[in-house]
């Protein structure tokens, strides 16, 4: 996945292989510019016009179908049947996603009418049920509110109601709690997790925060500068990170137990993707850098006992 910009080609996602199983929760963890959001938007083909998927396959098996479709090659008309219906999305900022001049009940109903061709009244009834599902107090009143009348947490609940309205197989949540207060963050994450279990959805959670991933996901993939650095079960990664970047991220992620102690940091800056570092993209910041790291790019690593790391030391 490359972006064409005035400063050259940005290789936002560069040779990434990932899979999400039915009912599984995968966390895609990375800092800004790591390509995590671009990767997720590629799946639902919501990329800006300048962006191009240069090469690759995104296989998806729609419910009730035997064959797998390639979302990269699917015509837009068929993509629309999948986007929002088979694959639901939750974005970081509900205020820019929601229509400010439309009542939230109607916004939830809109998708149901579009995808399931049911009557307006039936859709509105389902919208109220969905608001109940996302634990909005007094759902029938809230359905007649406009987005600005709701708090940040309530808006995010409305967006979740929209994302699950057609009972999707896969839910993509892009930084769903970054704009929220800590106490509301925990509530929203709990809600997403509960809904996932209840409806048997697969969940792709995109976050910059390892703590969020650790609370929600079974498996995580750590991205840096367009590449996956490490992938595996969250318990294994926490106990024994194989990639120096993952280890560093775990060290710098704040925790209450470490109060008053020394602060470790990762030196250096995030790389410029129009001109990424040679060899391993983390090598200029890596404490264990070897001569080989700046010359040769480490292979993505093969999955052995459910984990892999793209690092010369891990091989």
């Amino acid at each position, binding site marked *: 996945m490359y972006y064409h910009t005035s400063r050259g080609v940005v290789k936002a996602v560069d040779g990434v292989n990932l899979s999400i199983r039915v009912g599984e929760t995968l966390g895609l963890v990375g800092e800004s510019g790591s390509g995590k959001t671009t990767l997720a938007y590629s799946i639902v083909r919501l990329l800006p016009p300048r962006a191009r998927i240069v090469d690759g396959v995104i296989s998806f098996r729609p419910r009730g179908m035997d064959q797998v479709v390639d979302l990269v090659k699917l015509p837009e008309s068929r993509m629309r049947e999948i986007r929002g219906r088979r694959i639901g999305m939750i974005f970081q900022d509900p205020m820019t996603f929601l229509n400010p001049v439309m009542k939230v009940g109607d916004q939830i109903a809109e998708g149901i009418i579009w995808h399931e061709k049911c009557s307006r009244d039936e859709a509105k009834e389902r919208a109220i049920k969905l608001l109940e599902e996302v634990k909005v107090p007094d759902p029938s009143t809230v359905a007649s509110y406009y987005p600005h009348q709701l708090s940040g947490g309530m808006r995010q609940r409305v967006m979740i109601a929209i994302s699950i309205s057609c009972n999707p197989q896969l839910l993509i949540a892009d930084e769903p709690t970054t704009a929220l207060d800590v106490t509301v963050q925990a509530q929203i994450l709990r809600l997403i997790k509960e809904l996932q279990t209840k409806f048997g959805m697969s969940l792709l959670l995109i976050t910059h925060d390892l703590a969020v991933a650790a609370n929600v996901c079974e498996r995580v993939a750590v991205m840096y500068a367009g590449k996956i650095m490490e992938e595996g079960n969250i318990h294994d990664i926490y106990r024994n990170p194989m990639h120096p970047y993952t280890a560093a991220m775990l060290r710098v992620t704040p925790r*209450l137990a470490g109060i008053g102690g020394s602060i470790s940091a990762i030196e250096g800056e995030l790389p410029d993707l129009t001109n990424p570092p040679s060899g391993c993209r983390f090598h200029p910041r890596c404490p264990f850098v070897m001569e080989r790291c700046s010359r040769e790019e480490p292979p993505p690593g093969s999955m052995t006992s459910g984990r892999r790391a793209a690092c010369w030391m891990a091989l």
Partner: protein
Amino acid sequence: MDGSLNSSHGQAIIQVRDLRKYFPVSTQIFGRSRRFVRAVDGVSFDISKQESYGLIGESGSGKTTLARLILRLIEPTSGSVYFDGQNIYKMNTKQMALLRRKMQMIFQDPLSSLNPSKTIRQSLEQPFKLHTSFSKEQIENEVAHLLEVVGLTPPESFLDRFPHELSGGQRQRVCIARAVALRPAFLIADEPVSALDVSVRAQIIRLLRRLQTESKMTYLIITHDIALVGSLCSHVLVMYLGKIVESGHVEEVIRSPLHPYTQMLLSAVLEPDPNIIKIQRHVLQGEVPSPINPPSGCHFHPRCPYATERCKREPPRLTEVDGRLVACHLYT
């Protein structure tokens, strides 16, 4: 009890006394407004010299308004703030200009607080041109020295660049350099690292920590991030809907929070350890209510698991419990 508890450890640089700021909510185009947002509602505390205080609370708790009042960027509805024993709201323009040298602020978003059309050199020369009579050469030396202090080395490679040519972390370093240029005694930082990536965040925290020890500044760090307060501050003030609900030494408050709101905040801080799953805890409920019409009695009672009849009626006063201050009926 007016919050002067902390002053026993050192001389107070800032004393806040019964400070209030009500913003009118417009109801009609003409005529006076009858409804107010009580952003800061009767706050008193002291900040001791060379200590670092963290002010925490969720959005809408009034922490940014409080910071702006302390710097006199806005005028209060009532109450006073003393800087080195002098009431800053009684100062004239000339006295204020002198005071501004001693108090500085760092903002959350470094890009919007730097002039995009000025080079780093121009931005950093400004405080010296405004407040000192340094020669051109002296200013040049000072600016280069500042860049070294904040870790932008060699200075020559940064001086003639524009803000957009720097990364987020580098921009925040420039903002810090500008804030400490005149060696202020007191520095307020409003969410200094929340716009930065995790890997860069720790660098800035370390820089702020080092600057404080080296130049003996007093800090007030405003944030919603309790872990940041833990790594940077010695004292913490917890704010909820315009009032201080708990204050004390950071280790004590974090180890054993007394106020149910502090307990709730701490229980919501997620850890990167998959064995500590916090999102399942059911103590977390509700959201910050509107400050226009705050709940009666203790503002926190609708979300509080221990709320009694008394909490609905009577607002609790900040009282000393176990060497710190708590505003909760559980302890009175």
